[in-house]
C-alpha cells in the first residue's frame, strides 16, 4: 500500500485532486465570481455538453486539419530550403536575412494579413501554421547541416565514399535526427498557428469557439476549450516522442 505513494505520479494526482476540491469548495462558498472563475463542476458540464452534443467535432477537425496541414508543408518546405541554403551559398545569402527577420518578429502578427490574402477559410490557418513551422525547421536543418560532424565526413571520404554516400550515410541521418528532435516544438507551433488564425477570423475551429466564448463572456466554455486543446496537443506530443524514439533508436 505504501508503495503506491512513493510514485511521483501518485503524488501529483493527489495534488491535483486537492486543488480541484479546494477550488470547488471555494466556488460553493461563494468566494469566486462565477463569471470569471467557474467551478470545476461547471467546466466539466461545459466539456460534457461539447462532446455529448457532438458540437466539438467539426471544430476539432478544422483545427487539426489546419495544424497538421501546416506542420506537414512546413516541415517539407523547411527541410528543402534549409538544405538548399546549406548547399548553395547564394540561397543562404538570400534566405538568411528573411528567415532571421521572420524569426525575430512574433510570426502570429501576420495572421490578419493572411486573412486578407487567403480568406477566412482553412487556407489562412494552414498558412500561419506553416509559417511558424517552416522557419523553425529551416534553421534546424540549415545550422544542422553546417555543423555536421567533420570527422564523420572525413571518415566516409577515406573509406572511399563520394557525395552520394555522404548524403545517404552522414547528412540524411543527421538531418533526420535534428528534425525529429524539434518535432515536438514544431507540433506546438503548428497548433499555435492554427488556433491563433481561427481566433482572428474563422467560422470553425477551436480558436473560433474560444473567440465565441470570449464574446459571450462564457468562462466555463473557455476553460473547457483550453483543456481540450491541452489534451489533444499532449496526445500529439506523445505520438511524436514515440516516432522520435523509434526512428533514432541508435541514440538510446
Amino acid at each position, binding site marked *: 500500500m505504501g508503495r503506491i505513494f512513493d510514485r511521483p505520479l501518485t503524488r501529483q494526482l493527489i495534488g491535483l485532486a486537492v486543488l480541484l476540491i479546494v477550488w470547488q469548495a471555494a466556488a460553493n462558498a461563494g468566494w469566486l465570481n462565477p463569471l470569471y472563475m467557474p467551478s470545476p463542476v461547471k467546466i466539466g458540464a461545459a466539456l460534457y455538453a461539447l462532446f455529448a452534443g457532438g458540437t466539438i467535432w467539426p471544430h476539432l477537425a478544422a483545427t487539426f486539419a489546419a495544424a497538421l496541414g501546416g506542420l506537414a508543408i512546413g516541415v517539407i518546405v523547411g527541410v528543402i530550403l534549409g538544405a538548399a541554403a546549406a548547399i548553395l551559398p547564394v540561397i543562404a545569402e538570400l534566405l538568411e536575412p528573411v528567415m532571421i527577420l521572420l524569426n525575430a518578429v512574433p510570426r502570429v502578427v501576420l495572421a490578419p494579413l493572411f486573412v486578407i490574402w487567403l480568406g477566412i477559410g482553412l487556407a489562412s490557418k494552414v498558412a500561419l501554421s506553416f509559417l511558424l513551422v517552416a522557419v523553425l525547421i529551416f534553421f534546424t536543418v540549415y545550422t544542422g547541416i553546417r555543423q555536421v*560532424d567533420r*570527422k*564523420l565526413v*572525413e*571518415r*566516409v*571520404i*577515406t*573509406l*572511399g*565514399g563520394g557525395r552520394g*554516400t555522404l548524403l545517404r*550515410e*552522414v547528412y540524411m*541521418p543527421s538531418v533526420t*535526427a535534428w528534425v525529429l528532435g524539434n518535432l515536438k516544438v514544431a507540433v506546438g507551433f503548428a497548433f499555435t498557428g492554427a488556433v491563433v488564425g481561427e481566433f482572428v477570423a474563422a467560422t470553425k475551429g477551436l480558436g473560433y469557439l474560444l473567440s465565441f466564448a470570449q464574446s459571450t463572456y462564457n468562462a466555463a466554455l473557455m476553460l473547457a476549450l483550453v483543456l481540450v486543446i491541452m489534451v489533444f496537443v499532449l496526445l500529439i506530443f506523445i505520438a511524436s516522442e514515440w516516432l522520435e524514439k523509434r526512428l*533514432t*533508436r*541508435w*541514440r*538510446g
Partner: protein
Amino acid sequence: MLRVTDLALSYGATPVLEGVGMEVEDGEFVSLVGPSGSGKSTILRAIIGLQAPSAGKVELGVAKDKIGFLFQDDALLPWRRAAENVALGLRLRGMAKADALARAEEWLGRLGLHGFGARYPRELSGGQRKRVALAQVLALEPQLLLMDEPFSALDAITRARLSQDLLKLVEDHRLSVLLVTHDLEEALALSDNVYLLSRGPKARIAGQYPVPIPRPRDIIKARTHPEFGPLLERIWQNLSREVVGEPGKDEQWAGFSIGL
C-alpha cells in the same frame, strides 16, 4: 611504399611544416613522434589527400584504396550498427550487402568482438569502438596503414592489449604502417623506425632512429630488450635539446610520456 619529400604546408599564413622528408619501406612499421601541435597529424592528412601541401611530393607505392586510415577519434556512424559500420567500406567497393556484412562479422570476430555486430556505437566501450574502427579499416585489406594517435584516449591496459593485437595483425599480414603518436615508448615498442618531428611552426624531421629489436615482438617484452632503454634515452635527450632555449615553450612537451 611511401616516400614524402620536401613537404611544406601552411594553414593560411601560418607555416606548419617545412621540408619534411620521410619514408616507409614495404612491410615496415614507422612511427612519427613529436610534440602536440607540431603538425604530425597534418602530415598524415597530406598523405591521404585531406590537406593540400604547398610544396613537396608524396609518392605512394600503392593505390589510394589500398591505404587504410585510422583516426584519433573512433568516428563511427552513430546510426549504424557495428557490423554495418565495418561493412560500409566494403559496400563502397561494390561488395553485395550480405557478403559485406558477413565479412564484417568475420573481422569483428578477429578483433575480439564476436557477437557485437548488432550493437550501436553508443552501446560499446571506448576500447570496443576502437576495435570496430580498426576492423572497418582492416576489412578493406589495406597494404599501407596510416594511424593518427589511435589509442590515445584509452586506458593503459586496454591500450596495451589493443596495441599487441594490432601488432600481431600487422606482422601476420606484412602491412606497412605509419603511426603518429606522442608516446615515445609505444613508438619504440611497435616500430622498426622512429622519426622525430621538431616543434612547430615550420616543423621538420629532427632525427631518425632505427629500432633494432627483432620481430615478431611482444610489446611488453620489447621494453626489456637491452637496446630499448639506451635508445629511449637518446631520443628523449634530443627531444629535450629541441626545447632548451625556448622559454615558455615547455608546456608543449606536457603531452609527452617517457617511462621511468
